[in-house]
């Protein structure tokens, strides 16, 4: 009688305080019918992965504007692996230089969405990669 819902964690690792993008995305995903867990600013990689585990999310969305993405993302990928969250999809948004995108994808990030990314594309992407 129930219905499977896609659950997404939106988190901001690192120290920059710009959470507007993360909030906009959280709302967009909510309006797309997803259940969005919003954890807010200044999350450590440990906090993010533990939250993703407890909330049993299908997708983790990271918003990083500090330039620390090459330090934070690998750490999160590593923790996801040790916590048994290999099947959880990982998206990164924010300010990511072109040359880092392929590096992030190599370590296991499913997609990178920069400034100006179309929110419909993000919704479509999530609907496609999550096996319901």
């Amino acid at each position: 009688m129930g219905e499977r819902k896609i659950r997404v964690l939106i988190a901001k690792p690192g120290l920059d305080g710009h959470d507007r993008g993360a909030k906009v995305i959280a709302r967009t995903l909510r309006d797309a019918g997803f259940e969005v867990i919003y954890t807010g600013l200044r999350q450590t990689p440990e906090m993010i992965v533990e939250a993703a585990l407890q909330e049993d999310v299908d997708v983790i969305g990271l918003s990083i504007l500090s330039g620390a993405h090459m330090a934070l993302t690998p750490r999160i990928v590593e923790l996801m692996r040790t916590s048994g969250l290999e099947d959880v999809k990982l998206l990164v948004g924010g300010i990511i230089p072109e040359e880092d995108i392929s590096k992030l994808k190599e370590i296991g990030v499913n997609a990178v969405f920069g400034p100006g990314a179309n929110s419909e594309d993000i919704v479509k992407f999530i609907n496609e990669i999550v096996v319901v």
Partner: protein
Amino acid sequence: MPESDNLVEQVLAGNRRALARLISLVEDGTPEANEAISVLYSHTGSAYTIGVTGAPGTGKSCLVTELVKHLRTQDKRVAVVAVDPSSPFTGGALLGDRFRMRDLAGDPGVFIRSMATRGQLGGVARATFDVMRVLDAAGFDYVIVETVGAGQNEVEIARVADTVVLVDAPGMGDDIQAIKAGILEIADVIVVNKADRPGVKNTVRALKAMLELGHRKREISHHGQVMIQTDGFEKTLIDDMWQVPVLQTIATQGEGIEELAQAVLNHAEYLSSTGIQAERDRVRLQNELINRLRDRLVYDLLQRMPSQDLEKLVTAIAARELDPASAVQSLVSNSKHE
């Protein structure tokens, strides 16, 4: 071995990943979840459940965070179920309570789960109840449920929690008006949070005054044992009635939390020493049984009935050829003949 057996074993062994997964299955209402619960059920009944309810913005999440911290100092394992509303239009939800509970991150004795109401076919209350059972079986000493900010669900919480904590705050006069209709009657402990704000005395006084009115009403119909209807939920009351305390807290500074924890303990002690706990459990389980039966019968009936039959009836009702009650009568008697 079916997946559910495996999950159940892992949940009982304390695997948090399995616990989170099983909660999702329960929320989604899968057959695996039902199987799992039938196995887990014998492991339930040892967690103490606390419901925290109140208007939006009164500080429920902060208060829950502080209460959990306090219980952790006594080495109790605590699970939190934080409920936020689903959009009635898209079915999506923004679950933001965890955001305010960040102080609890990294503590292996705490498990926080955000839940959307998913308001369909009574699914909320049932899923919440079953999620609490899973957490109970997983060995948590306390399971705390934080309800959505307003609405009927707040009365629903009395169906699932041993102690209901109602949170209010000064300067929300209209909310007092809003809550006096039923929610005060289900409160076991009342907290006026943000007690450093002006107007706290007035809020406390107003709440106490309303409680006294409530008590007088109860005592009039009070002879030995009385059943009181609270929005369909029956509470059995016996002679020595619980005096609902009105406490003051400043959750952001951790003030008054010890008193709150003590009040919850006192209430738990009251419930068990008077035998009300057992009585409440029975009433609660009976309600659940009836609700489940109702859901199941309606579901079965709709499954058996060709959809065009239902549409025909709706057309007839809309054309004022048939009234809804008679339509139900004909549906039920038809199904008996089958």
